[in-house]
């Protein structure tokens, strides 16, 4: 196309761009891509992931709850909500998933290890919006369960992925963190793809960019998935696709991704 000809090409949204590239990169090391519902039960979004009701850890996920019909409400009040027995016919509180982890639980319930999946998808959090926060955004999560999985494997996988995604040599750094569904739990920093670690505005002069949360799947979560925690181990990771897109493409405002503005989309 010449510069003075009309633009007759279509353009893929930058979020889809990252998801497609991510799926392809992970497919090279044996990971499949799965998806699941955006409306979830309290059980799959929280309880199954070792985030019990009334636990302070729940504060980590500000949640959108759905208005219930009267029948549902009384069932929840009777304490029927969420519990394990209600797994197949949950009558408890419904919510908008705050992460795509419920999809992993659903997948692991139906499939035996080894499991290698990534789960990109739209998620929701009840947060005030600004240039870096949105009430809706896309999350990328991954799960690997096998007989002999370690933090060292996690480091390999994330280095492999981020290096290919950002197209430059990348180091990964773990820092102690806490998420109820993993133990040990770590924060993932990647070496800055812009300056290579010497310090620049993108990495706020630190040389590192905080990119994901991760860890070894908590034995209780494996057990909730129906997987014997002594025979299998696994890692899980999760981070924002919006953030990856913003970093990779230099997009400054997360909200601009959802306005349908072709001045943004048609650049991709």
């Amino acid at each position, binding site marked *: 196309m010449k510069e003075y000809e009309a633009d007759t090409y*279509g353009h893929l*949204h930058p979020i889809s761009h990252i998801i497609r590239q991510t799926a392809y990169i992970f497919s090279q090391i044996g990971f499949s891509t799965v998806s699941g519902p955006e409306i979830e039960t309290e059980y799959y979004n929280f309880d199954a992931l070792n985030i019990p009701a009334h636990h*302070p850890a729940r504060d980590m996920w500000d949640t959108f709850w*759905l208005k219930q019909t009267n029948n549902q409400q009384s069932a929840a009040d009777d304490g029927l909500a969420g519990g394990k027995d209600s797994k197949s016919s949950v009558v408890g509180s419904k919510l908008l998933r705050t992460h795509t982890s419920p999809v992993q639980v659903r997948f692991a319930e139906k499939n035996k290890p080894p499991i290698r999946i990534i789960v990109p998808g739209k998620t929701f959090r009840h947060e005030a919006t600004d240039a870096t926060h949105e009430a809706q955004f896309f999350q990328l999560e991954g799960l690997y369960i096998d007989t002999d999985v370690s933090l060292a494997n996690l480091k390999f996988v994330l280095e492999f992925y981020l290096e290919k995604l950002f197209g430059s040599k990348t180091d990964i750094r773990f820092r102690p963190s806490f998420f109820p569904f993993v133990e040990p739990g770590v924060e993932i920093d990647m070496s800055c793809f812009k300056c290579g670690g010497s310090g620049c505005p993108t990495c706020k002069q630190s040389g590192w960019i905080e990119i994901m949360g991760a860890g070894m799947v908590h034995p209780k979560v494996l057990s909730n998935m129906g997987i014997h925690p002594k025979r299998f181990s696994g890692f899980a990771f999760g981070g924002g696709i919006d953030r990856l897109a913003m970093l990779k493409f230099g997009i400054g405002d997360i909200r601009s991704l959802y306005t*349908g503005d072709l001045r943004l989309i048609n650049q991709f």
Partner: protein
Amino acid sequence: MLISYKWLERYFDEKLPEAEKISSALTMHSFEVESFEAVEGDTVFNIKILPDRAHDCLSHRGIAREISVILGTRLNKEEYELKPLSGIPESKKVTINYIDQKICPRFSALVIENIKIKESPGWLREILKSIGQKSINNVVDITNYVMFSMGQPLHAYDLSRLNQKDGVIDFGVRMSQKGEKLITLDGKEYEMPGGLLVIENEGAVGIAGIKGGNSSRIDENTKSIVIEAANFNPVAVRKSSKAIGLRTDASIRFENDISPKLTLRALEMARGLVLELASTKDTIIEGFADFYPIRRSDYKVGVSLEEIKKITGIDFDDKEIKKILDRALLKYEVINPRDVIVSLAKENLGKPYKYGASVTADAPNAFDCSSFISWLYAQAGISIPRISIDQYIYGAEISREKTKPGDLVFCNTHRDNRGVFHRKSIEFLPGTEVTKPVDHDGIYLGNGEVAHSTEIKGKIIVELLDESDSFKDIVGFRRVKEIDKDRYVISVPFERLDLRQPADLIEEIARIYGYENIKPKKLEETSAEVFTDKNSYYADLMKDILIGEGFSEIISYSFKNNGKIELLNPIASDKGFLRADLKNSMHDLLEFNFSNAELLGLTEVKVFEVGTIFNSKAEHLSLAVAVKNNEKQKVVDEAVRAVISKISDDLKIDLMKFGVIEGGIYEGDFEKAIKNLPEPKEVIKFESRPNLKFKTPSVYPFVLRDVAVFVPNGISADEVFAIIKKEGGNLLTRVRLFDVFEKTTEDGEKKISYAFRLVFQSQSRTLTDEEMNTIMERINKAVNAKLNWQVR
């Protein structure tokens, strides 16, 4: 939490490393130090304590411990070790009566008489000030000082202002009645909802674990005090706190759960400080009261070298692990699980049977069959499930011949008195079923003998398996995998409620050792087929078709001002529902983007969205495709229909069957449309264009100008464009050739007309007519300067 450097110094014998060093050490090994800054004569850290460390690290003592563990700085034992209150008589003035231990596992109180309330000394005022706490008076400051030192909230009451009955002040903890009123210390009146945890003393005198009441407050006239150190149920405090919208330093600590063993230690520390800072010659420690009906036993947790290596991927050896555990101030022993289990089983013969006995509270005084086994294994540092059936599922099957002392025997007693024959896992692996029900188990001791806690005999006995009534119907023998490897069994420090299972210990070891020591390790090769889920796969194929046809993908908001599913807590009143279609948002987007068409170099706007929509029964993936141009509606609809047909043909589906075209927009149920397509068995290849970088669009308006140029035959559009581009300068954002025609002049010469549309825009200002005219004159001049070129 705010942490004072000066305060930390009190916990060390040695000089504390510099703030910078502490900050990075904590961030890489414990939790994130968000910032540290110098304040008057001190340095204050702002530390983001992780939720699993809130039990022990919402305190200066906890942070001091971390620093010592990571940086090796020697602790001052005197200051660090916490002694419980001792040698004090039971109080004659304060009693603690009715309390449900479920909502308040422990309530301790100390009575001190004849003290003097006054201003705190300078050091105390200053140290509280550096972490943002206002000084009130010596006693109140002492309670705060103890809390920020060791994490146990305290509350001080004026003894004379509490209600007495027969000369005795009686405390309780209960749930509030709806409508009860209480004025808190800050003078605020609360009309309480029902179910709030309150301190009872002939009426509510405080909101338990959150804020004290005004009626028994300490002031300058106070002579005698009661100091409360309690342990409230975390959920109860959290619910209370949410119900009245009040979070305090105390409630944050209670809702994160703290050890009940802290109460007497906090009172001991408070006692010392009151004597130091508030005593008179008549001061006496009158006595203490302590309600603690169910004592929490000490916790043991174990892990093997093999487990640590397996999860971390670090090639540790025994020496290194021992070094780390020593550094971590964790007391441990290395044991052989089989030996410990067998010898402890024998030691506990004769202990009484109690159905539903608790492993943490009743053991080792009473057991039921499975609590006995669970407890024995716990002593060997192996955590196994609590219930027989789960223990059966947890262990690996072995034959009777291979069974060794310490392994497990499971049976069905056929005594149906409680209906507890289980075929299904209760807690361990939900959904897992076994063929034969299990209701009882025991420990094999060798020589055909089994030790078990039996309801029939009412105690733990040893019997020959073949002669036991209980074990007539043996369901199977099981071995717990960990039993044959030596384990490091740690006696968990009482305040470390986060160390409960092997994974917790592995984390503790790995983070202290340093995550930077983990080297990336490749995954094992897999021959398993890689796939994409059906919705994503066919959506991607379809997106590629649409993009090939000139359509751009949009992703819009799921929140709308109307729909079928309503949110309980919307983020804004116009975002109260989940979208029931895509087309409504698309309509507005078309208008907006069409107004920018020239800027984008478009003659029409063509967009699509694939996204989840919600109707009252379920959610599904919807597809919307739209075109907007200046053509008639019918023509527009036909353009949409054409692309829908193309997708349908290419994917072998029938989109029109599951959707409609209306006003230039198609919307249909994509999930239904692809329902009969085969499950995908691949991931579509996708490579990113290199150096794809986003340029933020200007917020200033763009300006359009057309220029048409007559040039001699043979001159290409490229040549004309080159001049326009050069002369247009930086403000020329886009150029589009919109008309070309040939004309033969009267003298027979062939000429070509190229008409360009020029889009000008500045990143920093609105363009004026004047500057536009200047630019256009420059372009015209440059064009006209060419031989036989002419601006029309």
